[in-house]
């Protein structure tokens, strides 16, 4: 029977001393965590992918709680997660549109591009950059480094020609960073269709024609359309996205372009 008294006494003493140590420790290191942060973390996928631009899911959760506006930043989680996050923060969870969308300034496919030689080496754009696998010194290599880097799989490759899915694109700009030829541009998302010039060749018409059948030859037809938001610079046509009010001049210019280098991407596809 001895131990039935001894045991609680001994353990009680240990527990007591341990508790005192812990209490002292606690006084010294006070940590305050917003309970919402923990809740948000529980909702997040927890892959720490970093696609949101923060250091891991915890970083994102903290940022979201601090500044509720960016609640839809979790890319792998998608809409479902974003709605949950919004619910935790008490924000109205309507479908949030990203403001920017990526476009690719080379729309030439295998048929249009002039390829007079054989490239030998690793099949990535970054590798091809050092020798080039197409005659055009500005165009797309078509190995699809942007496809692999896109966190939402919005970019696809159709016979060496890049397509950005406007619906999926979140405008993170990773493709723009990755592309060795700097072909990607982030443009404002207006309306349901985005028009863009699918050429980046800054040389004169003759040189452009020599290497590509769908390159911009700076003929200026698109500029002459009524209420045109197009302008020419360095032998190349550009769209001033700030000036876009109506879709008609864009559609008209697209139809009139002699080399068919104005392209569009819309939500329906």
């Amino acid at each position: 029977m001895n131990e039935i008294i001894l045991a609680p006494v001994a353990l009680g003493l240990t527990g007591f001393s341990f508790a005192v140590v812990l209490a002292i420790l606690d006084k010294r290191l006070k940590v305050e965590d917003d309970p919402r942060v923990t809740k948000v973390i529980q909702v997040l996928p927890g892959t720490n992918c970093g696609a949101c631009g923060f250091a891991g899911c915890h970083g994102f959760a903290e940022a979201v709680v601090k500044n509720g506006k960016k609640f839809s930043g979790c890319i792998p989680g998608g809409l479902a997660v974003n709605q949950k996050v919004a619910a935790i923060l008490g924000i109205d969870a309507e479908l949030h549109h990203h403001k920017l969308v990526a476009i690719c300034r080379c729309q030439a496919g295998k048929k249009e591009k002039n390829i007079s030689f054989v490239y030998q080496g690793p099949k990535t754009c970054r590798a091809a950059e050092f020798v080039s696998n197409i005659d055009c010194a500005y165009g797309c290599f078509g190995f699809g480094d942007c496809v692999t880097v896109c966190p939402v799989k919005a970019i696809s490759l159709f016979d060496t020609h890049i397509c950005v899915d406007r619906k999926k694109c979140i405008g993170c700009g990773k493709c723009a960073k990755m592309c060795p030829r700097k072909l990607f541009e982030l443009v404002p998302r207006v309306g349901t269709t985005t028009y863009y010039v699918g050429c980046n060749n800054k040389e004169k018409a003759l040189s452009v024609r020599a290497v590509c059948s769908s390159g911009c030859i700076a003929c200026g037809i698109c500029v002459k359309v009524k209420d045109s938001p197009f302008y020419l610079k360095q032998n190349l046509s550009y769209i001033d996205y700030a000036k876009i009010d109506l879709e008609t001049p864009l559609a008209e210019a697209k139809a009139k372009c002699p080399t068919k280098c104005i392209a569009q991407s819309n939500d329906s596809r």
Partner: protein
Amino acid sequence: MQVTVSTSPHLKSNIKTAIIMRQVMIALIPVVIAAVVFFKYRAIWLMLNCVLSAVISEKIILRIRAKSTSTKDGSAALSGLLLALILPPSIEWYAATLGSVFAIVVAKQLFGGLGSNIFNPALIGRAFLMAAYPKMLTTFVEPFAVDTVSGATPLALQKFSHITTSSVKLFWGNVPGSLGETCAIAIIIGGVYLLIKKIADWRIPLSLLVTTTCITIVFHWYKPQSGSILFHFLSGGLLLGAFFMATDPVTTPVTKSGRYIFGVGCGILMMIIRYFSGLPEGMMYSILFMNSLTPLINRYTRPKRFGT
């Protein structure tokens, strides 16, 4: 005119992975001949068994993983052959097949195939069999009388019964032992061929053999019954290991100083196992242990860049 473009250099040497593997196979010919002479049809069956099961399992895995690489580079066949050479001739066929498949599938393909494996596949195959069928792996037969008389290897005799086998016998290989480990002269011929052809780096065999020599000299002087230098040199898997296992490029350090460390480490460990452990032979385990240290060796022996 359609030309090819690529980055420099536009001039490349003739050496290829497949050629390296083929050269090692050629270097193994004397060893194979010796094995067939001593262990007759058993040797042939064992080698066929191991090589075929290695190649077939590699083919299957590559098919499953939908890899474009083929088995034509000969690395799987080489692993199978090497495994056969370090197995006892009396091993059951299913054990040899299992070992060969384990070597290729687990030790090589799971780690990403050729070039990515951490451990020498052939040695892992044997280590696995050692753990799976310990009895089978420690039973040896006398040469020329493969079906009847079981015998102890020179190292086991020396360790457990203190009987030293004569060096001449060891040199020609007329002793019980693993298929390809017995005939020292054949291994030396093959090894020298590898070194002359610059297929294998000389640093590892050299440092390994020098280390073992130094240790045996000291121990022989201190305790004469521990076996002479020549005895330790010619018996067991030392030579085969030094020339064919420890020179496997994939699983050994890439830096020059790292290769010396690797060789010395193998030598020390092997002699520790031979002298102190319960096993008579430690070449396999010592090389495998150093294989596991190879990434660390590589990392901490990075050469100083030119000019510093």
